[in-house]
């Protein structure tokens, strides 16, 4: 199946930041993996935030990793050659503190064997500059998308933040700027206080909330985005079972990404893939693309 210019091997992908650079999670049956998105990368290496970086919450978790990563040079040298030999596509999640920096990163990844596409992160809540602040302004989001689009021939997906009044406005803005697909949604900003220390549990004070706690919100926002644009929407947010994934497909998504569930069950992606296949065969759909979408247009 081709989604947003990328040939996916199936409808279930690994979400950015939950699958490293694809060299971990040895327990997963990778034949069931539709594709993966790398951990978010910047031009330069970043150490990330001090611990504590994660805390569990009811039906979810907060994380503030701070986009720890080796920088684009190391990614191209150490990981892309491995990806070039893999049978599923790898998108690189790209980040920057300015539209120019996103564009520069896109140019550095253009034509690199093993990189199937880019996912622009205009929605990370855990960096002091950039990230989410591009994603909640339609003009800034479009400017970043254009800056990337101009510097690469690779398919460009844009990962949107839920921290907006109307996701349809942002979705249309980045579609107009040349995005090939949307990933909906990134984490929601949250906080947790330690009553022993009377301070935030996370050293970054706030973190991104993920897991089943955000699923109904993610489902609604992915649906709203899908109603607003013609490019495909890839749903992500708290998916832990095939039923969850099927809800996103019916709500208008072409594919889904699985994140936090992989932390809990390294085989979650394979399990979800199998459940979708079983649903399709019971209902006589030749593939997940044949599942009828509930997508009323305004």
């Amino acid at each position: 199946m081709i989604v947003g210019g990328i040939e996916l091997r199936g409808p279930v992908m690994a979400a950015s930041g939950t699958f490293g650079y694809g060299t971990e999670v040895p327990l997963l049956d990778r034949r069931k993996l539709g594709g993966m998105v790398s951990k978010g990368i910047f031009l330069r290496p970043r150490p990330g935030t001090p611990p504590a970086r994660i805390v569990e919450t009811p039906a979810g978790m907060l994380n503030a990793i701070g986009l720890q990563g080796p920088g684009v040079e190391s990614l191209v040298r150490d990981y892309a050659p491995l990806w070039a030999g893999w049978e599923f596509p790898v998108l690189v999640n790209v980040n920057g503190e300015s539209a120019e920096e996103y564009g520069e990163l896109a140019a550095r990844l253009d034509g690199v064997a093993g990189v199937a596409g880019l996912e622009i992160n205009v929605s990370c809540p855990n960096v002091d500059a950039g990230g989410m602040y591009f994603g909640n302004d339609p003009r800034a989001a479009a400017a970043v998308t254009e800056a990337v689009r101009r510097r690469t021939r690779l398919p460009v997906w844009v990962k949107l933040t839920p921290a907006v009044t109307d996701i349809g406005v942002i979705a249309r803005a980045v579609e107009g700027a040349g995005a090939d697909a949307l990933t909906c949604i990134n984490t929601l900003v949250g906080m947790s206080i330690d009553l022993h220390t009377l301070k935030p549990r996370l050293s970054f004070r706030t973190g991104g909330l993920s897991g089943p706690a955000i699923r109904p919100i993610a489902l609604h926002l992915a649906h709203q985005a899908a109603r607003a644009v013609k490019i495909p929407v890839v749903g992500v947010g708290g998916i832990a079972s095939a039923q969850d994934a099927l809800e996103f497909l019916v709500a208008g998504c072409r594919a889904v990404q699985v994140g936090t569930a992989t932390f809990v069950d390294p085989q979650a992606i394979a399990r979800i893939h199998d459940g979708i296949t079983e649903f399709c065969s019971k209902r006589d759909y030749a593939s997940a693309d044949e599942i009828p979408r509930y997508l009323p247009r305004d």
Partner: protein
Amino acid sequence: MTGVREVARETFVISLAAPPVAASVRPGQFVMLGLNPGPLLRRPFSVYRAEGDLIEVILKPVGSGTRLLLASGAVSCVGPLGHGFSLDPAGGPVALVSGGLGVAAMPLAARAARSLGLRVAWVHGARTADELCAEWEGEEVVWATDDGSRGFHGTAVGAVPSVSMQVLACGPNRMLAAVADRWPEAQVALETYMGCGTGVCLGCAVPLARGGYDRACSEGPVYRAADVLWERLPTHLHYEASA
């Protein structure tokens, strides 16, 4: 789960049938245990012993998760994970220094040391005599209690005999920082928050003396004591208020 025994006040050893883990686990490695229904995230546990098809872990029912774990018949287990202790066959006698639940990492280390013909001094501390883990293994045992109710009055670190030994330690991070002061070359098994245990979430960051962070679940949980930037490592973990 096949058995439970109390080894100190409110401290239990549970046995689990986990043949692949039992067959391959090395000293200092851990497993991630999960419950469904239960808290979302798995919890890391050092493997206390491994025999035949069984592994044992040690826990205090402090949070809702560990209480549920103790009461449940079946748990889901991922492991063994992480890099454990490495013993130098020519490094002389071994001191296994543990505080509280840190004792969890020690029986496998004792067995490995003795199988290399190394003499083992087992040094274990707790707040009070009834909180000391009663089980030990080695040629010599030294007890320590914060209140002086049994053995050395003070911490396990203070109770270690002053002779040259390979020091392996596990316990609260504050205790391990004291280990680092006294024996920079000691091997310490750290406790951190963990999301996945498999290297992908980057939640278990350990601040390093040379700068940056790495992952307790993958590069650790055992570190050379001098390599850790102790003042940046959280000293107290609170799982109990969550989920």
